[in-house]
């Protein structure tokens, strides 16, 4: 019926339609006066086709407020069930266009549908975790919070429409392998501004380079083995400082802004400002091999030759903790940007996860036979890529049990790994850089076919994708190379977090804000959202203590007391009977639960017995009793 209605309403009023049929004349007299733009209720052509009685029915339907049955369901859950597709005729049936006073129709009635994936990205409450034994008041409050959260996630998803930039991409013609496309071809094909992002710094003198981009992606710092340290605004190619520290430089890293630079030198850790003036020499951190900066905690994590992982709080200049990894020399380190956990790679093939709050590693993952050469974690904290001396490159899932997802043997083995913001994985193998891409953002890179490859003039010594630019910086024996990798970076930055175009004033403002909300080091743990969850363990402990203190459970349900009924109806016998009935019912429920539990336990045990671990299932298993 609705379908017909739509068809009816969409026929434009015909000029000749105003002249009523003789048949309808009587009826038309009774009709209310209507405006010329208002549609005729039954156009004669349609009326001729349709039989009489159904017409009146149609009229009734037109008169009632035009809200189809399905719309209110749609309003309740704002997320459309299907991923958004161009409007189909089937969908249209639900959305009968509403007419306004002027007669104009809204062709897209109701709130705009939001694709599921977009809204899911913004969901924060994990619905699978249910709070057991919660009071109804708590439950209703949680429900309200959940509804609010859904609403905000839908709104946030809808606001994605306002994002200005689209991510880059590189596609071959049919059958063309993108890995065969050379940098020169890409440079030729792209616009001048992008082409200028590809450059080589030929610095053969000062040996293999380490490099680091600032968090805004605007500045680049690099340090050579033979003491050459420089920082520049690489977009405008404006040099900020260039010094030689006359000492081996092991690693270099920007602190929270581009104004401060930490350099791991042969003996000690030094901090320079953007003029190249030495501000601090931290002697408590000696023989540092790798540096990592945790921007939200203002912690500089250093891994040393002596096997210590030291956290330095750069906002107050104090060492927070020094952890002994007890695994010899540390020279493979990376941070998980999702939860600020430090991943250390060891020579026995394990990767250990560290937090400054705990003396022992949070987890140890056996990744390789032989030592681990490089570790990288992607920006969502979901995937970890490792490469080892066994020439393997593996990708692990960091959620749950740290399962390996995929592995690939590389002819040379990768010495350096880096993830881009959109999940591209770059590996430096000798003087070759390979880049693998996944299906999209948030999916692991597939290791079968490289997305891009590039050969450099020297061995790779440092790799980093530039944030918010489609650029991969490679430090090698011959200097620095800035490669173009279309589709590597997040196209839309958030102006209040990392703004590549920020002015000095904005940077200062941001710095104050960031310092005010410096996250304490003790809060680093595997799940950063744990702070927002209900602490069930403590709650139950407190409840137990309270019961012990009071001598009774104040929240216990009072035993059933039958209410006295009408006169003469509540004899003692009947009261006892009623009481008995309730008690029996409760008892039954309890025993049923017990039986069910024991049955489940039995089943579980049997399954364990029948399936000896390590053997493959056989066709003869079905005869096992």
């Amino acid at each position, binding site marked *: 019926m609705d379908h017909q209605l739509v068809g009816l309403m969409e026929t434009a009023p015909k000029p000749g339609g105003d002249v009523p049929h003789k048949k309808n004349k009587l009826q038309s007299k009774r009709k209310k006066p209507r405006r010329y733009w208002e549609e005729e209720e039954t156009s004669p052509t349609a009326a001729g086709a349709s039989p009489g009685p159904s017409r009146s029915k149609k009229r009734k339907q037109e008169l009632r407020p035009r809200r189809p049955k399905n719309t209110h369901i749609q309003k309740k859950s704002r997320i459309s069930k299907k991923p958004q597709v161009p409007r189909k005729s089937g969908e249209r049936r639900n959305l009968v266009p509403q007419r306004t006073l002027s007669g104009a129709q809204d062709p897209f009635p109701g709130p705009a549908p939001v694709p599921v994936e977009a809204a899911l*990205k913004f969901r924060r409450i994990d619905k699978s975790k249910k709070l057991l034994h919660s009071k109804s008041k708590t439950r209703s409050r949680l429900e309200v919070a959940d509804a609010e959260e859904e609403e905000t996630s839908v709104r946030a998803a809808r606001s994605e429409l306002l994002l200005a930039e689209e991510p880059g991409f590189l596609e071959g013609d049919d059958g063309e392998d993108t890995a065969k496309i050379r940098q020169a071809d890409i440079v030729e094909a792209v616009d001048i501004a992008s082409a200028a992002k590809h450059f080589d710094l030929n610095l053969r003198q000062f040996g293999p380079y380490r490099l680091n981009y600032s968090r805004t992606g605007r500045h680049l710092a690099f340090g050579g083995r033979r003491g050459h340290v420089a920082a520049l605004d690489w977009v405008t190619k404006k040099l900020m400082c260039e010094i030689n520290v006359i000492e081996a430089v092991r690693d270099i890293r920007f602190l929270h802004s581009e104004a401060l630079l930490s350099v791991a030198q042969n003996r000690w850790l030094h901090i320079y400002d953007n003029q190249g003036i030495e501000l601090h020499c931290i002697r408590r951190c000696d023989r540092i091999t790798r540096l990592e900066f945790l921007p939200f905690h203002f912690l500089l994590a250093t891994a040393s030759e002596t096997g210590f992982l030291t956290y330095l709080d750069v906002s107050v200049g104090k060492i927070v903790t020094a952890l002994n990894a007890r695994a010899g020399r540390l020279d493979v380190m990376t941070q998980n940007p999702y939860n600020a956990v430090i991943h250390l790679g060891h020579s026995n093939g394990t990767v250990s996860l560290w937090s400054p709050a705990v003396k022992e590693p949070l987890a140890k993952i056996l990744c390789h036979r032989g030592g681990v050469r490089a570790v990288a974690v992607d920006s969502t904290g979901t995937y970890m890529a490792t490469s080892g001396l066994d020439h393997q490159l593996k990708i692990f899932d960091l959620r749950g049990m740290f399962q390996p997802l995929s592995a690939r043997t590389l002819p040379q083995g990768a010495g350096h790994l880096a993830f881009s913001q959109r999940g591209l994985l770059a590996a430096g193998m000798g003087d070759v850089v390979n880049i693998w891409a996944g299906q999209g953002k948030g999916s692991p890179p597939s290791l079968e076919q490289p997305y891009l490859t590039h050969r450099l003039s020297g061995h790779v010594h440092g790799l980093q994708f530039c944030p918010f630019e489609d650029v991969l910086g490679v430090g090698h024996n011959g200097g620095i190379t800035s490669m173009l990798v279309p589709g590597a970076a997040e196209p839309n930055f958030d102006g209040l977090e990392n703004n590549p*175009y920020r002015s000095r004033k904005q940077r200062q403002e941001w710095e104050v804000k960031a310092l005010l909300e410096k996250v304490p080091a003790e809060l680093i743990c595997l799940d950063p959202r744990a702070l927002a969850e209900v602490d069930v363990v403590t709650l139950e402990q407190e409840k137990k203590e309270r019961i012990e203190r009071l001598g009774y459970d104040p929240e216990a349900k009072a035993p059933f007391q039958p209410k006295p009924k009408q006169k003469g109806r509540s004899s003692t016998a009947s009261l006892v009977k009623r009481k008995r009935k309730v008690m029996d019912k409760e008892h039954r429920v309890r025993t049923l639960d017990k039986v069910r539990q024991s049955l489940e336990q039995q089943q579980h045990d049997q399954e364990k017995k029948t399936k000896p671990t390590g053997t493959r299932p056989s066709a003869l298993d079905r005869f096992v009793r």
Partner: protein
Amino acid sequence: MKVKMLSRNPDNYVRETKLDIQRVPRNYDPTLHPFEVPREYVRALNATKLERVFAKPFLASLDGHRDGVNCLAKHPKSLATVLSGACDGEVRIWNLTKRKCIRTIQAHEGFVRGICTRFCGTSFFTTGDDKTVKQWKMDGPGYGEEEEPLHTVLGKTVYTGIDHHWKEAVFATCGQQVDIWDEQRTSPICSMTWGFDSISSVKFNPIETFLLGSCASDRNIVLYDMRQATPLKKVILDMRTNTICWNPMEAFIFTAANEDYNLYTFDMRALDTPVMVHMDHVSAVLDVDYSPTGKEFVSASFDKSIRIFPVDKSRSREVYHTKRMQHVICVKWTSDSKYIMCGSDEMNIRLWKANASEKLGVLTSREKAAKDYNQKLKEKFQHHPQIKRISRHRHLPKSIYSQIQEQRIMKEARRRKEVNRRKHSKPGSVPIVSEKKKHIVAVVK
């Protein structure tokens, strides 16, 4: 080969001239905003700390009375006007914006026991120890005229309290009995008694305007219906109730300020268990007044402090005290729900903010947004131990602090004794009586 590189036009991201505001593109993608929860937690912690830093509730002290302030009344039409009656029979009218006394009347001989304004705000009534009820004009006498009451009613006994009907020209006094008066007559329309005891206060219900509540010194709270001319029902508590106050939003809820240091919020329909027992004072509670929102009330106590309680919480959210403030006799929450006034023994009326850290004056929209955001954060993380500790912390005078400790020990001892007694007697012979039921003796209808 098809290729597209990310290439931003700086003109879209940088302001054109220095006169423009900076462009701030936003992207709410959660991966660009990591550590959302820990950062919000830190923000909430900072907001809580700042709230304590800015908690400066004391605004002004109105001095001028020559004896202890015994009663206060709000002006129903003007936020800036307050009336107060003192123990030497003097009534003063104050202007709060100027913080000055604008009129002084020697109304009675002896105490001014009660003061109330007429709902239209043109006149007010006082009763005193000289057994009179007097009606005064709100405006002062003209030039050359003498300060004289509009009407004077001479009674037989002392009236200890007075309250005016919220809509009609009727008022009620209490003393040995509750009297309902017509404004035009010199004898009461009706008198209601239940037992023989002095009644200390009487209050009209602001919503169901025919209802009255009174509390007497024989430990009971009596409810009346003006239309029936007989009392409705009464509840007898362990100790004497000093005053009651009706909730201005919920017709059947009232709160009683009791001598046993507690306040009891009752539902009029079920008097046998109070809805909530509010405990925190360490001495007799002398007065109570609801905020106009009906969500909170303020109580004045003999322990030289005033406390603010949420209606549904048994513990106070705020305590106000100063070194100079003595026993607080009367307290009022102003009609804009922003301020609290209290009159105390040492002849001063003090003006406080109802929300200790609130910024007064007009807020810019950004200030307002920041305030709302911080409020929400504090609410979200309120149960975290660190935040709870900071937000609950209050400095107390030593006398109150040590008394709280002492009473905690006493309460613990009593509880321990009860537990032991229960342990060593026949199961069920020592019943568990909840704190709410403990203090109710009986309900009589």
